[in-house]
């Protein structure tokens, strides 16, 4: 976003420059000034955009760079920093819990986001169809979970997914004769519960984005397809999804990054700051830094996470880019 903004400002400034230059050239005054008008315009342009960049430098760039620096030191936050080379990376790569947290993050990410994006697409299609009444009520209702705090969600879901036999989900399963599940401490129980929280909180957000995309699709396309005898399924597959491609790319991209940063859900749901069944990579990082004051290994984890996010996002982008390319007939 900041990139496009900067581009606009730059082009604006350039046009302006051209005008003033012309104006100055016509009278041809020989008097030399300290700064030419062009330089002044440039300076004021940079001044205008500087507040963001200054703040970003202090609160964004510096911590990021410092984190890279810290990854090569042993530091408890208060004492002396001790250079240890690549030892922090060595420590985390040899920690089974680190690999477990990476595995959990990927599994929970898949369980929480893949079904959610599909559900969001279907929900958006339903909300966009002419058949539904009270559309704005449904749109609001579907979006509401997004505005709740993650902590509140985690606490409410802890009650729903309670380990006790009397918990909501457990007593529901009891109706079908299924034994109560230890949601917070079992390998799959914890993952299901955490994925359910992510699903519930984000499905509305993605629905609204898809809905916005769908409303931009001209109705003519559907009408033409109907005349040609296309079924509803064919309409979705050949019109809606290809036309939604930029929106799908956006949601997949943000959902991937979001999924790799799961933190509050396992942290609160499992109690005592998380357990191996649900620990995510960010929670691992957090425990290193703020639980144990091992800022070196925490920074090393952050760097590893940074590269993982790039790899995953790039891979997703490539995959999603192929949407609509196959199976399309008659298009160049």
């Amino acid at each position, binding site marked *: 976003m900041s990139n496009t903004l900067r581009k606009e400002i730059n082009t604006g400034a350039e046009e302006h420059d051209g005008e003033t230059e012309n104006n100055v050239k016509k009278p041809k005054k020989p008097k030399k000034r300290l700064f030419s008008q062009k330089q002044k315009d440039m300076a004021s342009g940079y001044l205008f955009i500087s507040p963001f960049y200054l703040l970003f430098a202090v609160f964004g760039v510096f911590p990021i760079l410092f984190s890279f620096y810290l990854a090569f030191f042993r530091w408890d936050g208060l004492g002396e920093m001790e250079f240890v080379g690549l030892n922090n990376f060595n420590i985390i790569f040899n920690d089974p819990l680190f690999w477990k947290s990476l595995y959990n993050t990927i599994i929970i990410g898949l369980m929480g986001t893949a079904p959610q994006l599909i559900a969001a697409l279907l929900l958006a299609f339903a909300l966009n169809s002419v058949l539904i009444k009270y559309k704005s009520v449904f749109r609001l209702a579907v979006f509401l979970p997004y505005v709740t705090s993650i902590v509140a969600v985690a606490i409410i879901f802890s009650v729903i997914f309670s380990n006790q036999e009397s918990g909501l989900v457990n007593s529901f399963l009891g109706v079908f004769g299924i034994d109560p599940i230890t949601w917070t401490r079992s390998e799959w129980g914890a993952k299901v519960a955490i994925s359910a929280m992510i699903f519930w909180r984000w499905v509305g957000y993605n629905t609204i984005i898809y809905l916005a995309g769908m409303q931009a699709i001209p109705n003519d396309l559907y009408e033409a397809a109907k005349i040609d005898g296309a079924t509803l399924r064919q309409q979705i597959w050949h019109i809606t999804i290809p036309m939604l491609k930029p929106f799908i790319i956006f949601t997949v991209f943000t959902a991937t990054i979001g999924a790799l940063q799961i933190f509050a859900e396992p942290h609160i749901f499992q109690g005592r700051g998380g357990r191996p069944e649900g620990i995510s990579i960010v929670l691992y990082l957090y425990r290193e830094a703020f639980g144990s004051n091992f800022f070196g290994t925490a920074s090393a984890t952050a760097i590893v996470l940074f590269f993982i996010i790039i790899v995953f996002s*790039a891979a997703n982008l490539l995959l999603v880019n192929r949407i609509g390319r196959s199976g399309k007939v008659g298009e160049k």
Partner: protein
Amino acid sequence: MMKKSSMLTVLTAMAFLTAACGGNEANNEEAQADGGNNNANVDNEDADVTDLGAEDAEVELSFWLFGATGYPELAEEYIEENPEVSITFQEIDMEDHHNNLFTALSAGSGAPDMAAIEVSEIDGYKNAEDRFVNLYDLGAEDVEDDFLDWAWEVGSNVEGDFQFGLPTDIGPTVMFYRADIFEEAGLPSEPEEVEELLQTWEDFEEAGDTVLEETGTPMTGNPETLFNAKRDQAPEHYFNEEDELILDSTPYVEEAFMDTSALIEQGHVDNYGMWTPEWGGAMDDGGYATLLAPAWMQGVVKDNAPDQENWRVASMPEGGGNWGGSYITIPDQSEHPEEAFAFMEWLLAPEQQQKAFENMGLFPSAPEVYEMETFTEFSDDYFGGQNTAEVFAESALENEHVHKGPQYGDVNTEILDGLDNVYDGADPEEEWEDVLTRVEQRTSR
């Protein structure tokens, strides 16, 4: 080609940005979530700032603290007597308080003249003597005898020549129990009788058998409280004074782990997670017969079971320990350490501690208060008119100091996770080995 490379730039930038934003949000919410978890008297409000004294006072002190202490109201008297001093109190929730303090100390600027540190956090600061004023340099030895020995030692370094803080309140542990459940099981239910009955952990187990058989209720609510109680009776815990891990070389913690596991396997321990709504609800509807907990837990019990008339207090079998409490320290950034210490000395003198106990229920770290009428004449209607203060005081007087070390909390978490696994069916011996492996992994950095 061009497109691809610019795409990658955008991608990288977005990864950075979202990483940064995500981190912040998570942090805040985490703080909110933990706010209620660590102490009974925690307020989840934003910073509460109170200014006392004249604006043009010669000495301006700042004091960061957390929880409901009532200190600003108490300090009004001090300001009246010492008009040259003004004090700014900043009260926020416990998690934020410690984060702010840690950051200010780490950065080397922004710390107050006085800062409270919770007892479970204080060992994390002891490697940084240079960030604090040694209270012995300000005359702390003159007030040392006012405080309980063990409480004083928690605030000292291992050698005992550097005093980080003065103890404010403490959390002596006792056994809260449900008289109605004991009665239903055919056991005596008056506090004196129960203390007589449950002198050792064997007695506890026997009574547990009876309670379980007669009423079907487990003796206690979760492994955590039981393990804490047993561990706190050990002369050594997780680390020795050189901060070397001693779980393997000393028998005490393993014994506490095995004993707790045995009681779990016999069905005497339920597993209501601490601070969960179910745990609180069970206080009211009798989900467990005893709650092994510190004095300040009475506030939590009263909040969760306001109409319950059957809770009573007895001393812990084989003696209590300490859970909770705080220390007031002076960061070395302070420009007025002498004046700050003078105020702390006054604030934590027995007379003021007695008022803090009466006003806010802060349990005094100065044993002189236990002799005062406030204590000897104390009675609590919620606990059937019992003099609970004396039971807590007895526990406080018996306690002894044990070295904890900066990674204490990490080790504790792994042990408690292990006990949860035992509750879920793991074999205690194997689980103990796993705990040792995990602890080793987590502390060797």
